[in-house]
């Protein structure tokens, strides 16, 4: 594997002029000699590879120091920075040579992240037409919640079996068309509302709990349903009206639609990139995966 001297220093613009000074080059060269001497050691094997700390890299190290400390490094500090860098570079190369990057989850994920980042086109500007089309295509994502009107007869859960029988009796009367007001037994008084209008699923759940909300969501229009058991007691329920959530006009939800559209663009770009790369590979999965393992 060929190792190329670092061309980096993208973030190094700050003190460029100062660091173009010959002094710095001199320091860099000096540090390099020092490092080579230290690493290779006297009387050891001849160096097989070389590390060149480029002027741009030295510049980047100095600029990084200055960002943190609000002053340029002293000569000693710069020597130390360069030395640290060279040690890092040596470790890096040795680690690659030893294959230490291969089975390391952290490194694999980081590299994948980098690839995805490169494939990410960044947020794009959308035209109104594109946003309108996106809104129309995914109306449900931006729609307000559906709303339900329903009525409710409550039977307290005292003596459970008797209460349930009573609830069933009341249900039969309601189903036969008797209005609630005319029932000899109109159920029990409760702090729970005897009707809700324009209630969202969330409204219903926050007042009655999940059991009643689920029963109302599944109930046909008009017919009395139940009895449904909640933490409060038994409930007979009649849905009297229901409207699905409708999508608002673009102007009211433009930021959400734009964010959603951009996210979709981003995902599409990343997916297309993966597809393209995938074509270069033939994938073989060895061995059958046990059912249990797959499920876990």
């Amino acid at each position: 594997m060929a190792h190329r001297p670092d061309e980096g220093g993208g973030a190094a613009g700050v003190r460029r002029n100062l660091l173009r000074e010959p002094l710095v080059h001199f320091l860099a060269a000096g540090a390099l000699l020092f490092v080579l001497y230290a690493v290779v050691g006297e009387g050891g094997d001849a160096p097989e590879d070389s590390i060149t700390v480029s002027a741009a890299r030295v510049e980047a190290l100095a600029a990084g120091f200055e960002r943190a400390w609000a002053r340029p490094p002293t000569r000693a500090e710069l020597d130390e920075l360069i030395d640290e860098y060279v040690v890092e570079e040596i470790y890096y190369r040795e680690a690659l040579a030893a294959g230490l990057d291969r089975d390391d989850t952290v490194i694999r994920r980081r590299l994948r992240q980098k690839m995805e980042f490169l494939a990410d086109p960044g947020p794009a500007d959308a035209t109104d037409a594109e946003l309108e089309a996106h809104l129309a295509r995914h109306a449900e994502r931006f729609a307000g919640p559906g709303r339900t009107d329903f009525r409710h007869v409550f039977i307290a859960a005292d003596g459970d079996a008797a209460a349930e029988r009573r609830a069933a009796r009341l249900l039969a009367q309601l189903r036969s068309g008797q209005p609630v007001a005319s029932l000899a037994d109109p159920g029990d008084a409760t702090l729970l509302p005897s009707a809700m209008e324009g209630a969202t699923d969330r409204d219903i759940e926050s007042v009655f709990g999940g059991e009643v909300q689920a029963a109302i969501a599944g109930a046909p229009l008009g017919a009395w349903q139940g009895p449904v058991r909640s933490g409060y007691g038994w409930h007979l329920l009649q849905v009297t009206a229901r409207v699905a959530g409708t999508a608002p006009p673009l102007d009211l939800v433009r930021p959400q639609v734009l964010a959603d559209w951009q996210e979709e663009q981003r995902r599409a770009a990343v997916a297309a990139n993966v597809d393209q790369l995938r074509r270069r590979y033939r994938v073989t999965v060895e061995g059958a995966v046990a059912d249990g393992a797959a499920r876990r």
Partner: protein
Amino acid sequence: MPIAALRRTLCAAVLAATTGPAMAAGGASAGLPAPDADTAARGHTQKPVYSPYASRGYPTRPFFGDTHLHTSFSMDAGAFGARLTPRDAYRFARGNEVTASSGQPVKLSRPLDFLVVADHSDGMGFFPQVMAGGAAVMADPQGRKWHDMIRGGQGAEAAIEIIRSFGAGSLPKDLVSVPGTAAYRDAWQATIAAAEEANQPGVFTAFIGYEWTSNTGANNLHRNVIYRDGADLARQLEPLITMKPWGSDNPADLWKWMAGYEDKTGGNVLAIAHNGNLSNGLMFPTVEAFGRKLDRGYVEGRARWERLYEVTQTKGTGEAHPFLSPNDEFAGFELWDKGNLDGSVAKTPDMLRYEYAREALKAGLVLEQKLGTNPYKFGLIGSSDAHNGLAAMEEDNFFGKTTPQEPSPERLTKTFVADMRTGVKIMDWEVGASGYAAVWATENTREAIFDAMERRETYATTGPRIVVRFFGGWDFTDADAGGRMPASVGYSKGVPMGGDLRAAPPGKVPTFLVAALKDPLGANLDRIQVVKGWVDAKGGVNEKVYDVAWGDADRRKPAADGKLPPVGSTVDVANATWTNTIGDPELITVWQDPDFDPRQRAFYYARVLEIPTPRWTAYDAKRFGIEPLAGTSMTLQERAYTAPIWYTP
């Protein structure tokens, strides 16, 4: 009433007053003959509305939320390891799953209805800067040290140093982002933007807010400031901080800032005082405050700007203390009474009466007699004061107060605050999974919830979403408790929690319609109590707690001494379970004051107790298989406290 709110009310009154006459006058001047009464009556039919559900002008359900939540923008929260931002906090409160700073997925059992992200105004956005190693931070030796400690995995130690240094006022000047700097502006704008993004009228209310963190001597006098307004007004002024010379640690100066904000922008703000249990005797002064004798300016300012009080939160509950209320068997609930915020000064018993809500309500009556205004005429709310962006206050889903206190096998046994010198020590297990604010607003919007807070129509819960109604009047009868629509009766015959009883008709005594409905997911109810406080003829203050309705009433009767037997317990601590086989899912009654004297000032509020349930510590012991330390509380009776109703002769 704040001027702007008064202005709104006046405008509405003026509109109402002018509309009718203007129409009649307009008709006459257009050359038509003035209609006679009969003709006019046919033109303006005013039949009673048949449908009992049509256009009810009163709130039909309470909205639950948190007025006091910190994110990584609060420097201590960030130092403790919080990474969640205001945006994450709102997302979580709306019911979305997020990843906590400790890396665990977390989601509420159901969404909250509203949230105030209230990050500390001092050093707002400080921590993201320390983390990032910004230039100013790294140029300061102390800042660099903290940065290195956090990067080196010593975040908790750094946090403690930062908070101590802030408490001692020795935070390096160069490090503090103060109003007027770009860093500060960015943090405030980001806070506002997160609220604007999450706010969805009718579905979820995201208030703009901040916490003004007066903490001199680590005596906790914090206030949460909440805006009725949107970004256009809130961004016109940066929050008040406490560090001089930019700000002040005196609440009276906060009120000045609030008045200035309202004058400049035409907006509305209110302030809620932090639970006073860590103020070491300073939260409810009765003689002097900040070196000044309590005068009309103080009591009027406090009454005008602080109409709510945070009675329960993760750092303990501050309704009542057994030392002050020896006859109240439920006063000793989740107490933190060992010292101030950092434990640097231990508590002495003489401090307690200036820290607990019930005492303050009583002291307020006396001050009103003396100075003409009751500075402590507040409604009650609970909130979390969590410092990890997570308003997760359910016992079985408690994500702690700080990031290190998010669920882990360690949190049952670790120490939270310890001061070797004073011996004050608070363990992580003492942190409470509490609480939320319940607000009887007409709709879920910033305006409606804020206005309900201003009229104090609120109550505190220690976590469960119990529904509590409390009305006071002179004519409630037992039949009103048997009806199907207690609220309709309550509003037509009386005033709701937070209100004032109308003038006493001769020979009548106050009657109260009180009702409670258990949390749909929660435990049955043990009892409803009414707490009364009053000033007697000699000027002394008194209190009494009455049991007014209770569960299992068919087999559970008060003893000869009037004492109601305990409801019992179904809690299996080892398995962290309980059953709703005791108590009742709902309770309602009409109660009248048996000891009423029309010459004496009084207040009444309701306290609702659940049956015993496992505390979060029991869920932790079970789920992590950890043995709790000796003395750890493993069960509790969750509760709700309503705003009082006042009687003034």
